[in-house]
């Protein structure tokens, strides 16, 4: 495992928000880590493998909330570095990407990270957030005219709602738009992405970059 990741895990597992956040920000400042590595190598694995040895499930959920709070703060604080990195990369794209979670889905950190990845790829990334109601979004589509809609799903039960959401989005789309999905809900069964009517499944920055590029060539 990455040395930096191990260091972060130490603070993270202790729920030491102050140390964890300042450690990461220091890394970003020193340019010893880039956004993609930060998200893919440190934050995502930490979030996905939150260990809880406590017997009481309720305490585990509470600890999970604290830990996602730490990650959320880091992601928010990383935004200036995201912008900086995009400038450095120098890529520009006319693509508008909308990133959201389906109704009842409250786990939005993955979506937040994906939004940053779209930004890094030069897209106009619009992060809608968690628990997006079906109807509100219909109106947004006709105003935004997105090229890509990315839906992040963590809880697999929400795939039911995601399927419906995708159906409804398709019914109001006027121009070509790719609908892509990602998140923990697909981890064990990627086939599900196609089952619920998405065009593609993404799980890394590379996947997003590939999709944005293919969108540019179109």
């Amino acid at each position, binding site marked *: 495992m990455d040395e930096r990741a191990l260091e972060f895990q130490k603070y993270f597992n202790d729920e030491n928000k102050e140390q964890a956040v300042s450690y990461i920000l220091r890394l970003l400042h020193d340019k010893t880590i880039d956004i993609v590595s930060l998200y893919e190598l440190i934050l995502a694995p930490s979030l996905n493998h939150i260990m809880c040895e406590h017997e009481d499930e309720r305490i585990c959920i509470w600890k999970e909330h604290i830990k996602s709070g730490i990650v959320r703060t880091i992601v928010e604080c990383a935004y200036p570095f995201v912008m900086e990195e995009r400038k450095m990369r120098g890529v520009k794209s006319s693509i508008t990407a909308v990133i959201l979670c389906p109704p009842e889905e409250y786990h939005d950190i993955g979506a937040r990270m994906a939004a940053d990845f779209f930004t890094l790829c030069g897209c106009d990334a619009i992060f809608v957030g968690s628990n997006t109601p079906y109807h509100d979004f219909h109106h947004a589509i006709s105003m935004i005219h997105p090229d890509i809609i990315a839906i992040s799903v963590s*809880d*697999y*039960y929400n*795939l*039911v709602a995601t399927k419906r959401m995708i159906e409804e989005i398709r019914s109001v789309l006027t121009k070509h738009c790719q609908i892509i999905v990602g998140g923990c809900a697909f981890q*064990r*069964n990627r086939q*599900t992405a196609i*089952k619920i009517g998405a065009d593609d499944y993404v799980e890394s920055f590379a996947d997003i970059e590939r999709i944005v590029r293919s969108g540019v060539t179109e």
Partner: protein
Amino acid sequence: MGTIMELKNINKIYGTQIQTQVLYDINLSFEAGSFNSIIGQSGSGKSTLLNIMGTLDRPTTGDVFIKGVNVNEMTDNELADIRNLLIGFVFQFHYLLPEFTAIENVLMPYRIRNQKVTKEVKSKAEEYMELVGLSQVRNNPSSKMSGGQQQRTAIARALINNPSLILADEPTGNLDSDSTENIYELMRDINQKLGTTFIIITHDRRIAEKADRIVEIKDGKINLDLTK
């Protein structure tokens, strides 16, 4: 562990004059020991599907196989035996016999097949009442218990003959959220301890999201079949 329940090309049409098709070519199979939920809007046909799986209703066309045996080829008595020994039902409206006490209700499926209640079975019933947290009120008339208590009694009743399959239709449909959580925990516990297969119709996402598999029925068809 193999397939416990298999549905092949199930169609269900109600009525003779005005025909309403409720299920369209349903093909589904469930693994023994799995914990499944069926979701769908009311009127989607999910209850009909569950009743067909439980041999309470017959499909208009198509076959139901329970442990590999075609239900269509069984006599009424064989069906009764399947319902008694292989399947445990938990309904939304718990359906206890109001003339009997809680523990008598729990013992009822056993008594349907056996002349005498042995000591072992009696203590098993008491153990299940303990498991569902009702040992204090086990001798109360079932009509005098709260909704949650009745539903938990119904679960204990569904378990008494050690069925391989439990079919539950909105088991927490009219319960408060604490009771719902308890009942889910109970069912999951039984699933893990005894290897009992569960197929649960539910509106409650707290139950559905924890199932190994979610089958969504929409307009009489399988809209989505998700495995965790």
